[in-house]
């Protein structure tokens, strides 16, 4: 296993965000974590990349225990992340953003830079534009390209489809597949479960800080429970989904409705 997360617990103050998550990612896979808002998906990624400290449990990467390793060292170890909300440096140009991605490296980065531009021709067109002035989709491309600059062994993607138009979501997902084909392992966190399950090998379903289900992605696509909760409709695909997803409804229902609507993203 390339990345193993064993029974991790994470707290924000006294509130437990993760109550024992166990996930493993093998070399060359695309693994996805799906679940509603507040299920702990983003916290799991942040804990893997070192932005959150874990209370108990262990994270093993490439045969080493990295549970106590500071976040910036994990980049050199081979963990790259495109954070939630993209985290573009708004005052830096596209090229400077990409070069920041290679900050931890001391060797020549021109090959990776060329590769990023080849993967995202849009970024090449805008290389001297400041990051903050780009559209959401371009920023997402930049965030992924920037994470690749460090030549990560595993790429952590946090909601890459968030806030993007359906056309762009398609494009981003096919690029993720392409990145994976070129040899980078991907751990993908998504609310857009439909799309994520289609490109993933395996998936974990998270609910309120716990893994409630894990299976090959294809199986989950057909799983009636998962369909009902995350893929919209499910039990009665032909019937018009009842407009009951009001704010007081349980989070699963609200989320399912959105994913079913073609995944035009969520606003927070």
């Amino acid at each position: 296993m390339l990345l193993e997360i064993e029974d991790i617990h994470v707290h924000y103050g006294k509130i437990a965000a993760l109550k024992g998550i166990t996930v493993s990612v093998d070399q060359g896979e695309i693994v996805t974590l799906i679940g509603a808002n507040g299920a702990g998906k983003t916290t799991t990624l942040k804990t893997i990349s070192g932005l959150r400290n874990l209370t108990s449990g262990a994270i093993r990467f490439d045969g080493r225990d990295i549970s106590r390793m500071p976040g910036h060292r994990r980049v050199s170890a081979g963990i790259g992340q495109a954070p939630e909300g993209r985290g573009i440096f708004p005052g830096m140009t596209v090229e400077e953003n990409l070069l920041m991605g290679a900050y931890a490296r001391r060797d020549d980065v021109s090959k990776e830079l060329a590769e990023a531009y080849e993967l995202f021709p849009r970024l090449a067109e805008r290389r001297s534009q400041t990051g903050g002035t780009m559209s959401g989709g371009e920023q997402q491309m930049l965030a992924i390209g920037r994470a690749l600059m460090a030549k990560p062994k595993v790429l952590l993607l946090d909601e890459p489809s968030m806030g993007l138009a359906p056309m762009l979501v398609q494009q981003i997902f096919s690029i993720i597949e392409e990145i994976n084909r070129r040899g980078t392992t991907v751990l993908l966190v998504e609310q857009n479960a439909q799309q994520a399950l289609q490109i993933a090998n395996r998936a974990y379903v998270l609910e309120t800080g716990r893994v409630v289900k894990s299976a090959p992605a294809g199986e989950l696509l057909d799983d009636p429970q998962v369909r009902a909760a995350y893929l919209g409709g499910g039990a009665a695909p032909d019937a018009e989904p009842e407009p009951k997803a009001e704010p007081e409804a349980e989070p699963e229902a609200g989320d399912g409705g959105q994913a079913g609507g073609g995944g035009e993203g969520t606003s927070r």
Partner: protein
Amino acid sequence: MNLTKNGNGGRFGSGPSLDPLRHWWAGAPGWQRWIVYTLLIVGAVFLPSESIGSFMAPSGANWPSMLSDQIAIYVLLALGLNVVVGMAGLLDLGYVAFYAVGGYTIAIFAVRYHWSFWETLVLAILFSALAGVILGAPTLRLRGDYLAIVTLGFGEIVKRTANNSSFVNGPRGVQGIPHPPTLSEFEILGVQPLKYGLLDSRPYYYLLLVFIILAIVFVRRLDASRVGRAWASIREDEDAAELMGVPTFRFKLAAFAIGAAIGGSGGVVFAAKQTSILPANFDFLVSALILAAVVLGGSGNIPGAILGAFVVAWLPERFRFLDDYRMLIFGGALVVMMIFRPEGLWPSRRRKAELAEGTGGMGSMGAEVAGPGQSEAAEVGK
């Protein structure tokens, strides 16, 4: 829609743009830059002359001493705080503490142990950098407003400690701090620039000028290096910086220590010029004014910080004839400034772009559809 972006794009007539100047500077060959540097230094050397002073300080005030006691000190402090606030993006409201550490280091070691000025200078720089690390190590895990509150507290603690410690005479302060030793008696154009006495302020101004130039060169070189890139990334998005492999905590600590060291060196010269210091010299107002100088001038930009410090130190003195109203007018001017030119008088281009985007990368979140949307926004504006 992207209302904020539109609002900033057509910002109240935008004010004078420095872009053509910047553009020329970015493409200027080395020799042209050196000419500018030389002219600036020559200008600074002749700044205390009476012909300039008659305009700058007309109401009988002593222009050279205004330069050395106020303006040059503020410029040096603003350069130091600019590292912390402008470059690393850490809001420090207790910067005066490091200035005080510098001042009290020379007060204690020169008066009690008879160390020379230069020895205490080195010691003071080390001590204030150490104070920066001591303050930073536990507090730099905090962010934004919380860091500001803690640093504000630290500034008060240093002042109160001095005020209540009999070792440094409490509120009566320390007297009899020696002037720097005279290095040479040589005279040029009626000035003895290396003779540090009681009457002539100009040698202190020249001493500070040397400090300022050294600080500029040092900070500039850092800013252009990997350190500067790390600071910029921390300022723009700290979490993302950590994800890029930037050891954010270490670089924030370094910014604190470097800013503190520069502030401490200012405190040493201040104490040696005044020959006595009081805890009251290190009031919160000084922190606030230096911060105002950095923000007003253009946070993160060295020429901007210098300009801001000059304005903040000089304007209230220049308009002293307005008596009690001058601080009111000064405050009003700062408010007006922040409305019409929030990026400062002389911002760096990058800082301008950051401000246009609001809170950094996170500012663009929300239901945004691909495409900049600038043209639509412009149409709406019609």
